[in-house]
């Protein structure tokens, strides 16, 4: 299992089972998986796996959520992006940032910065090293599960 780092985005109850999800915000299977996982008592670790050719807004969306993270709003932006995947163009990202009360100027500069792009690439490269080749991919107890989580897997996490 790819090791956890202090830079990881994690939410869920202390002591919960740790699940790492590689995903991107333009992937409908990722949104569906996230809806299932958020109902479970897990420590969910979100990592980026944007593939620009098949999902061209996945990289800008990943940068947007990382820019939001710099204003302590990773998870609110994460939820807002997954909630409406049909609106991931720049004006939609600005609207979400505004709704979340972010400093728009800082958000815009951050999401276009090399620092934020590099942060996204760190996740992507960790995914490659771990054998990820599709989204979503979950790691549970060191085992890789590529593709939408099965009913059996979700039941085992409940």
């Amino acid at each position, binding site marked *: 299992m790819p090791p956890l780092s202090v830079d990881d985005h994690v939410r869920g109850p202390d002591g919960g089972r740790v699940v790492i999800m590689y995903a991107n915000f333009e992937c409908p299977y990722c949104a569906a998986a996230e809806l299932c996982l958020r109902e479970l008592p897990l420590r969910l670790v979100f990592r980026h796996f944007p*593939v*620009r*050719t*098949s999902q*061209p807004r996945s990289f800008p969306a990943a940068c947007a959520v990382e820019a939001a993270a710099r204003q302590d709003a990773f998870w609110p932006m994460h939820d807002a992006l997954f909630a409406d995947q049909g609106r991931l163009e720049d004006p939609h990202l600005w609207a979400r940032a505004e709704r979340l009360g972010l400093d728009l100027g800082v958000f815009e500069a951050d999401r276009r910065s090399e620092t934020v792009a590099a942060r996204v690439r760190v996740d*992507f*490269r960790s995914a*490659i*090293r*771990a*054998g*990820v*080749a*599709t989204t979503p991919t979950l790691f549970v107890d060191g085992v890789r599960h590529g593709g939408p989580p099965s009913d059996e897997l979700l039941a085992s996490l409940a």
Partner: protein
Amino acid sequence: MIEAGRSAPAFSLARHESPPFTERDLRGGTTVLVFYPFAFSPVCTDQLGIYNELLDDFADEGAAVYGVSCDSTWSQAAFRRQLGIDIEQLSDFWPHGRTSGAFGVLDPGGFAHRAIVIVGTDGVVTWSHLSASLDELPGPNLIFDALAGV
């Protein structure tokens, strides 16, 4: 399929608006031949898209990546344009599948199996991988491990 330690066979693959790619073109550096079944099909699209994100990493390892299928050069060019990828495409359309057959990855249905062959600068295969099924997308980690000699 062709195994590590064997010399790459003589072959010729058509390129869109360029001279054919042959075994002589393998001599300039490490070559990663990515055989895939069909342009525009779902897994092939994902596979080339992910590999395309890593072209700089492959270059850092001294490797050039090529996509190989039995589609025509026109289909491959359209596929490449639609995906927005930089990976050069090599066509085994005619004589249909001859190169795929020489590498041992041609399906009787007339398409290349999903397979990867790495050829060293001396023209000798250093690693090869055949997916267990057409739906199995080989993770790029397999290629990087092979390039690193893991």
